[in-house]
């Protein structure tokens, strides 16, 4: 279609765009965290602890990004079984550590904690991309197109679920299903599986397998539609109301002080209060722009099925996780603890996302080289 150097130019332009989107998201995250921070700094004289630490996480994340971006992506394909093993082991290790808030999600290394499930998300993408590359022609089969890939990644999803971190495991499951759908799994196969799972879920709800706090969250979601207002989301809505169109200004939000986990799960509300509808539109522009660019680059420049599906999966992960987080913030979804990728405060999430992004870049550049 294009002359060789023209297409080369186009690729560089698209890659630059991709990097720009990510950088803008990171900057937006710092600005948002500044808002979450400034309150503490004025009240308790702690100076920008979130921003400072987040900058460190970004630095570490960028280091991971550089390493993976410069590595040959095929290494990951070959190491996939090792990654799976590592993910399972780390997800088992978390049970050795005392729970935080009834949940074993973290490995505590004194100076910092690691959340293995964040890295496990990337491992899932690598595993699936590899599987799809192998089974490209058999995806229309119920067993080989849906059940086998699901079983393959199920240890990660199940271990995450019993940490318990139900929201992350549901998120993983959604990403898996969507990626398989793109790879050609039949829609009605997915539908059949979903209805089966829904039946099991209803049955377990009846006999009370769900934990009390899970019941509570589900109830709070039901209440949301029947008139009740879960506290956090109520505050989120209040933040948007105070923010209005133009926001109350950087660092000047007031509702935010009442919002729990404002630095991570509810960073979007904090940003919304301070930058208003305008700021929120910007978030969506960056998010959809980034995802669109990932999809475009994958379909346009990536020949190998592994590479293409990895990038698709990465885009789907970013999109789904962001929309779930924002959906919770705006009160359209029940309160769940899912961070906003590239924006929310948190080391594991930041490093895992940036490292994952590095793999995507290495795929694009590697394809071109080889």
């Amino acid at each position, binding site marked *: 279609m294009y002359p060789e150097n023209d297409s080369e130019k186009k690729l560089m332009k698209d890659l630059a765009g991709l990097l720009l989107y990510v950088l803008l998201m990171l900057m937006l995250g710092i600005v948002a965290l500044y808002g979450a921070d400034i309150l503490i700094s004025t009240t308790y004289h702690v100076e920008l602890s979130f921003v400072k630490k987040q900058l460190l996480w970004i630095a570490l994340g960028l280091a991971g990004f550089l390493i993976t971006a410069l590595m040959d992506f095929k290494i990951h394909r070959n190491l996939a079984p090792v990654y799976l093993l590592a993910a399972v082991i780390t997800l088992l290790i978390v049970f050795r550590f005392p729970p935080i808030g009834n949940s074993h999600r973290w490995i505590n290394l004194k100076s910092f904690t690691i959340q293995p499930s964040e890295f496990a998300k990337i491992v899932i993408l690598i595993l699936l991309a590899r599987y799809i590359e192998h089974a490209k022609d058999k995806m229309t089969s119920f067993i080989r197109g849906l059940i086998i890939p699901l079983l393959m990644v199920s240890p990660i999803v199940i271990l995450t679920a019993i940490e318990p971190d139900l929201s992350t495991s549901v998120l993983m499951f959604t990403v898996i299903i969507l990626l398989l759908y793109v790879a050609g799994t039949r829609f009605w196969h997915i539908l059949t599986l979903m209805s089966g799972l829904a039946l099991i879920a209803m049955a377990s709800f009846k006999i009370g397998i769900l934990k009390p706090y899970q019941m509570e969250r589900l109830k709070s979601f039901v209440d949301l539609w029947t008139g009740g207002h879960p506290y956090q989301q109520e505050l989120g*809505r209040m933040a948007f*109301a105070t923010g209005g169109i133009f926001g109350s200004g950087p660092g000047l939000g007031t509702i935010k002080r009442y919002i729990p986990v404002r630095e991570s799960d509810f960073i979007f509300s904090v940003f919304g209060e301070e930058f208003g509808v305008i700021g929120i539109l910007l978030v969506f522009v960056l998010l959809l722009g980034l*995802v669109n660019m990932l999809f475009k680059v994958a379909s346009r420049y990536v020949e190998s099925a592994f590479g293409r599906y990895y990038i698709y999966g990465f885009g789907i992960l970013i999109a789904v996780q962001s929309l779930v987080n924002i959906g919770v913030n705006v009160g359209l979804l029940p309160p769940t603890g899912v961070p906003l990728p590239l924006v929310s405060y948190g080391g594991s999430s930041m490093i895992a996302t940036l490292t994952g992004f590095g793999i995507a870049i290495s795929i694009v550049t590697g394809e071109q080289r080889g």
Partner: protein
Amino acid sequence: MEERRIRQLLAIFFILSLAMIAKVVYDALIGAQIFAFAFTERIPAKNGTVYDRNGRVLSTDLLRYVAYLDRDYLMLNSEDGEREILDLAKTLRLDPSYLREKRFPVLMRAPFESSILAAIPSNFIKFVSIGKEYERFSISTSSFSVYLKRVERYHWDILKKGKDGYLSHNLVSGERKISEPSNGKDIRLTVDMDMQKAADEILQEAIVEYGAKDGLIIIMESQTGGISAIASTYDWPFAAQGYFEPGSSIKPIIYAIAMEEGIVSTSTTFFCEGKIRPLEDASVVIHDIDAHGTVTTVDALVKSCNVASVEISKYMISKIGLERYYWWLRRFGFGEPSGIDVEKETSGNLLDFSRWYDTFFAHLAIGQGIGVNAFQLIRAFNAIATNGVLVTPHFLHSISGPDGEKEILYPSKRVISESTAIKLKRILEEVVERGTGVKASVAGLRIGGKTGTAQKASTNGYEDGRYYSIFLGFFPLESPQYTVLVLMDEPSTEYLGGEVAAPVFKSVVEKITEIGEKDTPEFVRNAVKGVVPDFRGLTVKEAQLLANALGLEVEIIGRGIVKRQDIEPGRIYSEKLKISLVCGFESE
């Protein structure tokens, strides 16, 4: 396929994003604006209050506290919610199933918050929210309550409350927002509860004294039509919704029509032999109590002669015809609601002239064959008291609004000439002085009145020994202040209007003048009739009160306190007099 599915996903992400943006925009602009005011207290709107003439409360919304249980919160926060709910139900004597059924069941209502806090066990208080509401209370100790209820309903559009208001407090900015509740408007009635109480007492005594089944007394301001009191023993608004045959009490109206049409004059004579056959070829005979012999028009009405009345009615038919006769009756307000502001007023029963049978005129002349409600009757009779003007009987005096009370103006119309009315007034005075109504006379007071005795009619014709005993009167004669209707239903000791209703009327008049005197300020009591008083130094209101008492007409110029009067104090007057009063304020 892969590309198509990727595009599908992108589209889904885009649509979900739009939904979330829409939600944020909604919250930012509308949805959460009120929501941001975390502590919102409802200020319940209030229906208007009904006052009597002197500002006493007749009916009002009273604040009450309501305790609601947050059932789910209780269930969630207690070990054995089910048992606690049973305990609570037992303590408060409530049905446990009611507490289980509703999300926010009402535990109790009380006039004070403290009584709720005292009644509910302390361990439940945290699950209870206390709200405010209004409950309507109306006086019930007076027979007026029967009408009050219907008057209120008639004017409910005025009294009706609008939206609740709220007071909200933004916990972040500290900003407070108040939205006023839209309360209903207050109204003032013409009813004077002092007079009402007196009328109630008089009626109760009369019922016992005459062994009557029921009774009704209406006291109406002659010049305005405002009802000052309505005592009644019926448990329904008989005066507005029931009708009866007026009997002889309709005669002043028949005479008024005849005099106005020039059919009779005060000197026309009639011969009464005690009975009359209205039509030669009909079997109907109308009887009289006595054979009155030769009587003038005046005597005929004074003695309530049936024969003369039937003859007058007969002349009327031949001279003016049925249609115009009917037109006159309609002009006096028969056959249509009087306009009284009581819900569902009846039109009474007045046959259209096309359906008048041949001897109808004779029955009409003695108040038979026509059904009137009490307000229609007192209104028509009152046209003589007002020198010919038909007023609208009413209860609603004024409506309070943002800029003070607004008095309601009611339609009135002239129905007969002043000269005819004055002639009739004199005759009606003689009714009380020397006629059927002597038992209504009060020493030192000029009263005009008319008796009526109406045999009660049922579907089987007239019933033996069952009567309405009626008296209609007004006083003082020159410029009547009050017009009164007394109706006794099935008195058993006596039955004639002059024997039963007239003495009741007398008690009413005596009581009213007593009340009036008690309320009369010194400057009015000290004034002498026929001598121009000194208005200077009085307020406009006081001056008008004094002028009314003396039957003087005053013209008020300016505002404030009377400074000058154009006719010197002390001058003797006998005719109608109009005095101009120039007013001003101290500083001027």
